[in-house]
Structure formats: structure tokens, C-alpha cells
């Protein structure tokens, strides 16, 4: 059976009788990569837990349920296509982040936070 296929090897094969332009090495890339974020039962925010490949957005959420909540980890799942995430570059680390390190006037250090306020 032809190994080059539109839908990804195995799941949606194209077979010998359907002529397809051979695509070198891109066949398995047809399932885009998604980043997965899970919020735990006691959490207030979603946390990045890993990534997965899926054919589309709906299958990605369900795959995340199977891969990243097997052990009762969470109650809410977000998936985002990795291609849709814009990230800072490691090369730019110094110009991006170093300047904020020595500016004490940006921190509210003159307030007292009461003991029973946990999230500040």
C-alpha cells in the first residue's frame, strides 16, 4: 500500500487506486501539533502540560483528555495549535527581561500583605 497519503499513514490511507502526488516526508506532518493546558481541581489557572498531534481541534481536546488527564489531574483542558503561539526568542532574553531586574520602584514593596491573602 502506498505510504504517501493525504490523511496520515494508517488512519486515512489513500491506497493504490487513488493517484496521489508523492509528498516526501510531509505525510505524517498532516496532523498539526497542539500545545495542551490543563487546570487542576484546586487550580485557578491553566498550566502547560505537554503537546500532542491531532487531525483537528475537536480531536485534540479529546486526545488531551486521554493523554493528560489519565490520573485525575484536571477539570478543564485548553488546546492551542502550536503554530498559533507566538513566543519570545531565547536569543532576545537579555534585552527582553534583564532591564526589569533592578527597578525596585516597579514593586509595591511599601505595602503589607495580610497573612490570609494567598495569591499575591
Amino acid at each position, binding site marked *: 500500500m502506498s505510504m504517501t*497519503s*493525504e*490523511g*496520515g*499513514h*494508517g*488512519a*486515512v*490511507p*489513500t*491506497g493504490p487506486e*487513488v493517484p496521489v502526488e508523492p509528498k516526501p516526508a510531509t505525510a505524517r506532518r498532516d*496532523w498539526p501539533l497542539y500545545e495542551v493546558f*490543563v*487546570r*487542576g*481541581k*484546586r*487550580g485557578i*489557572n491553566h*498550566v502547560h*502540560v505537554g503537546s*500532542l*498531534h*491531532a*487531525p*483537528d481541534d*475537536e*480531536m485534540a481536546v*479529546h*486526545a488531551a483528555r*486521554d*493523554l493528560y488527564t*489519565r*490520573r*485525575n*489531574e*484536571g477539570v478543564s483542558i485548553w488546546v492551542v495549535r502550536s503554530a498559533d503561539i507566538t513566543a519570545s526568542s531565547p536569543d532576545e532574553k537579555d534585552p527582553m527581561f534583564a532591564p526589569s531586574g533592578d527597578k525596585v520602584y516597579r514593586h509595591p514593596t511599601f505595602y503589607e500583605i495580610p497573612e490570609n491573602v*494567598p*495569591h*499575591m
Partner: protein
Amino acid sequence: MAHEETVYEALDHAHSDEGHWAFGTGFDEPLAGVDTTVPEGVDPADLGEYCLMLGDDALVLAQRLTQWITNAPELEEEVAIGNIALDLLGQARLLLARAGSVGVLGRSRERATESIPDEDALAYFRDPDEFRCTALVEAENGDFAHTMLRLLAAATVRLAVLARLRESRDPVLAAIAAKGVNELTYHRDHAARWVLRLGDGTDESHRRAQAGTEAVWPLLADVFSATPTEQRLAAGGIAVDPAEVRGEVHAVLTEVLERATLTVPEWPADASPRGRLGEHGPELAELLDVLQGLAREHPAATW
């Protein structure tokens, strides 16, 4: 600055810092607090046999699904199929344990050593003619499309039965059904999502999905036929008469197939429930060979 708790730390802390979230925390015992006495007016032999019917369906389908482990189309799908099989195995375990607890063990208890629990004895030491599963779950997997069509059919039937079984007069069956309904809803949805994508996909996937449909359809011939045991138990409010779920199963399968642009085959004529009465083809013997081989060769082995 406060350190933001990861989901794994939250798991730990939720269960009094037992540590090592990876070993599992906060397990719910599904039958905790459930009364296990046999309800009044019910023959334990009938109840046990019904548990074997539902339990064997789950056990055999789980074994079929695990045949995809190491060769599923994608890693994510492999874990999904594995999870579905594990859910079914959990249901099988509870049901076979219930059969054992009411004394229905057949020849298995003599063959298994004392140290083996009832549900393991039933799983590993019964012969094919003692199994009470239907042809729908025994049939071979075929290709991925065929597997998803069979899973869709089997999960739809099982979900319909278990949804009604939640009202059973037997508290144990009702509890098992309540737990199973959540799992089966997910299994049915997983299969349906794939059937939609394969049917309404490429020419090749559509062809294979249609072929899978034609292959699975005849297996629905006996799933709505009740045995005398099921009829007696249904009259007593314990079991679900499978004839009751025909309408729902037809409606669900028709809807999914039509949306997947597949042709719904003629519904097969009703057949006698041979599998439920212990008559099986060679596929079951082959499957049980693999399932039972190790246990039978080393009956007292432990991990």
C-alpha cells in the same frame, strides 16, 4: 512571590501530601457502601449468569481493542484505545466478581488455585463454551475503520443497556451501570467522531468505512434477542431486556452513519442469541488462547 501550584502538586496536596502523585492518589472505590446481598425473589444462578453475559462482553471487547497496542495509527490513538480497553476491563472485573460472589463459577474454580480471586478464575480458566458474550464483541478487528464501526455499534448497544440498568433492583448492578454509563458515553463518542471523519473523509477512508459498516452490520442480528435468563430477570426488575434498546440503537447508528455520508445497510433479521448461550465460532477460542495461555500454564504465578 507565591509559587504557582502545578497540577501534579495539586494532586499531591489534595490527598494529604501522600507524595508521589505518579503512583496514584485519591482512588474512589466504586462499590464502596453498596449492599451485596442478592435481592429477594432472585435466583442467584440467573443473576450470576447475567453478570457473566455483561462481563464477558466487556472482557472480550477489551481484549480485541488491546490488539491495536503497538500498531495503532498514531500514538494518541493508541493511548485512547488503551484507555477504552481499560475502562471495559474495569467493568468486566466488577461484573465477574459479582458472578463469583453469588456462586456462579462453572468449572473455573476447580482449575484455578485457591490464591486466585473469583474474577481471575472466571477470566482465565473458563473454556469457550462457558463464555456468554455476543458475536459483536468476538469478531476480529479488521482495519481501523472496521474497528471504529464495531466499537460504535458495541458501545451504543452497551450504553443503551447500562443506562437502563441504573434502575436495577440489584444495587451492585445499578452501581456498576452508573459508573459504566460515563465511560461508555465517552467510548461511543470516540468511535462516532472517527466514523464521521472516516466516512466524510477521503475516497479511500469512505470506502473502508463503508466496508467496515457492511462487515459489522450482520453482527447486530442477535444483540436484541433475550435469553430466558434475561427475560426472567427483566420481569423481576433486575436486568434489562435487550429488545427494549432496539429503537435507541437504530436511531443513534442511523444518525451517525448518515452524517458520515455512509449508506445504512438493511438491519439484519433477528437471530437466536447463540453467543449468550455459549455457542461461539473459532475466533473466540483463538482470542482466549492468547488471553488465558500464560495463566493456564502457570496457574499460581504472581508478578
